[in-house]
């Protein structure tokens, strides 16, 4: 196995160092490790090229002189190989370190650490003193997280089984567009293939492995797509008016659009997504809150409270 690794490293060095394209025969003659029959060397080289490509090392195919149909050659362009973030400061390295550390124990931990190693290899010391004491944590431990982020970057469809409201597992296939957190939950958004419409899924409701498929890959993500904005937009669909007791219902007060002082009570306006989620929120606060409008929602709320009473007499 060491021999193969040596050969891959030597091939990388040779193709990076050369200014001219090296033909296969030049490679076989000069790079250590290519042995056996012509076919064997050929096979070895094809595999090595694939392996390096999988490591993100792009091998260019070209020829010295476009006017002559001479044999094509290979090289690795240094500008495509090396990390290029421009000049970087100690403060920037420190911020990137914090960003990587946020993954400790979470889904992309290993990628974050390998990224950090590359950044530290730029020869700039991290200036930690420049930063306040922070250690934000990303709490993404869902097993599918890594699969989804990779699928988004490769534009590959993903399939998974999703728990419906009635606890049934339904198979969904989507073209994933984006992944984001909101209120401590991770969401993935994408175009649902069978529904042919945008859908958002909460990661912790995925109850199977997430699989990818090359079938239908390469779809376009609208460049202006913003998951958080679309989630926020959904939630600002309707407005309700609610009286809340002074000193109570802090959660609703914090989320309110406007507050009007009415003596013992305050009247607020608040956005809501659907009637049931607002009724749930109102009932958590018991008789510290009173829904004023819309009237139809008031009727529904009264029915729900009657149900609670009937269930508990």
């Amino acid at each position, binding site marked *: 196995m060491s021999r193969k*690794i*040596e050969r*891959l*490293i030597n091939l990388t*060095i040779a193709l*990076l*160092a050369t200014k001219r394209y090296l033909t296969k025969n030049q490679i076989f003659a000069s*790079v250590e490790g290519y042995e056996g029959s012509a076919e064997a060397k050929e096979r070895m080289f094809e595999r090595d090229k694939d*392996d390096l490509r999988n*490591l*993100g090392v792009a091998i260019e195919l070209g020829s010295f002189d476009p006017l002559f149909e001479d044999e094509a050659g290979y090289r690795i362009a*240094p500008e*495509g*190989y090396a*990390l*290029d973030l421009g000049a970087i*400061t100690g403060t920037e390295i420190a*911020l*990137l370190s*914090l*960003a*990587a550390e*946020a993954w400790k124990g979470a889904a*992309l931990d290993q*990628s974050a650490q*390998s*990224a950090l*190693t*590359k*950044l*530290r290899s*730029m020869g700039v010391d991290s200036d930690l003193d420049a930063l*306040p004491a*922070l250690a*934000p*944590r*990303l*709490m993404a431990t869902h097993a599918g997280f890594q699969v989804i*982020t*990779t699928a*988004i*970057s490769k534009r590959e469809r993903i399939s998974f089984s999703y*728990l419906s*409201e*009635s*606890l049934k597992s339904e198979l969904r296939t989507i073209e994933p567009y984006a992944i984001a*957190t909101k209120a401590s939950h991770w969401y993935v958004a994408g175009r649902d293939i069978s529904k042919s419409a945008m859908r958002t899924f909460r990661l912790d*409701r995925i109850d199977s492995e997430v699989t990818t498929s090359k079938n239908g890959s390469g779809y376009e*993500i609208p460049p202006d797509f*913003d998951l958080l904005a679309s989630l926020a937009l959904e939630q600002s669909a309707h407005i309700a008016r609610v009286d809340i007791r002074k*000193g109570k219902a802090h959660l609703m007060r914090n989320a309110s659009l406007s507050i009007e002082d009415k003596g013992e009570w305050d009247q607020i306006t608040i956005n809501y997504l659907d009637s049931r989620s607002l009724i*749930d929120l109102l*009932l958590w606060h*018991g*008789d510290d809150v009173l*829904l004023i409008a819309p009237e139809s929602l008031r009727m529904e*709320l009264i029915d729900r*409270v009657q149900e*609670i009473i009937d269930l*508990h007499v």
Partner: protein
Amino acid sequence: MSKPSQSSLGRTARLLDLVPYLASHQGIALSHLAQDFSVTEPEMIADLTTLWMCGLPGYTPLELMDLSFESGFVTIRNASTLSNPRRLSEEEMIALLLGLDLVIESLPSEREDLRVIAADLVARLSSRVSVPTKLSAKPSTPGSVRAVIQDLLQKRGALEILYHSSYSDTVTSRVVTPIEFREENNFEYLWAFCQRAGGFRSFRLDRIQSAQLSQMPTYEPESPVQDKAATISYTLRAHSRPRQIMERFGIDKSDFAGDLPAASFSYEWIRRSILACSGSVELVQPASVRALILHSGRAILERYKAG
């Protein structure tokens, strides 16, 4: 997290990254080097031995990389071809972008300077990845609160917090000695000794409205701290919306059948949670909380009939 790869591809990637790391960390101790790459010392020695055999075509001592690591400290020479770090993979960029987003949101408000630098880094990274602006991570805790707590955790100082308890729906001021951060169900908690309660309590970070240094003496726990919150057993019966009930009451899907046993440390939480399911769930036991729910339901109904 999976262990660093011992596959030939994984090792090749590590060796390619090892060269620039060594070039920028000349004379690093072998033990540190192994640690930085999350491998054992023998594995690192195997990596270095392989590298030693690599170089430019010709493979004479002039072309081979020159490594020395016999005295326990590692230096590298003659490695200029590989001495630039490799570009970041898409997944590495995604990890950094999401992490940076979180860092930006976590910075205290007075550090606008750092926010600008971090936003510039995001822009530079985003231009190199094919998923720009699609990634976002928002912390649930304001940066100012986090920074103060983090600082006092290191100094072991007492902290005065303004805390919103959602169960009692009250905001109270408490003096606590922070012990550590904990994570549970996607929320972050501060585990601390609360002087007001005279015991250890956990505080959900996003419910801490402000935090500042307190002049009160700190509490030093003498023995390892155990969570001794009393638990209350209760039983539920689901009537509709099972997924919501499962998530709200933390019941495992595999246990979701018939009457559902569960536990909480607050009657108030049970009462409010049942009400907030607006008729989807019924509390079977304990009878005393059942009576409270009935009472609350009637009180709410009365208010609406009156208004």
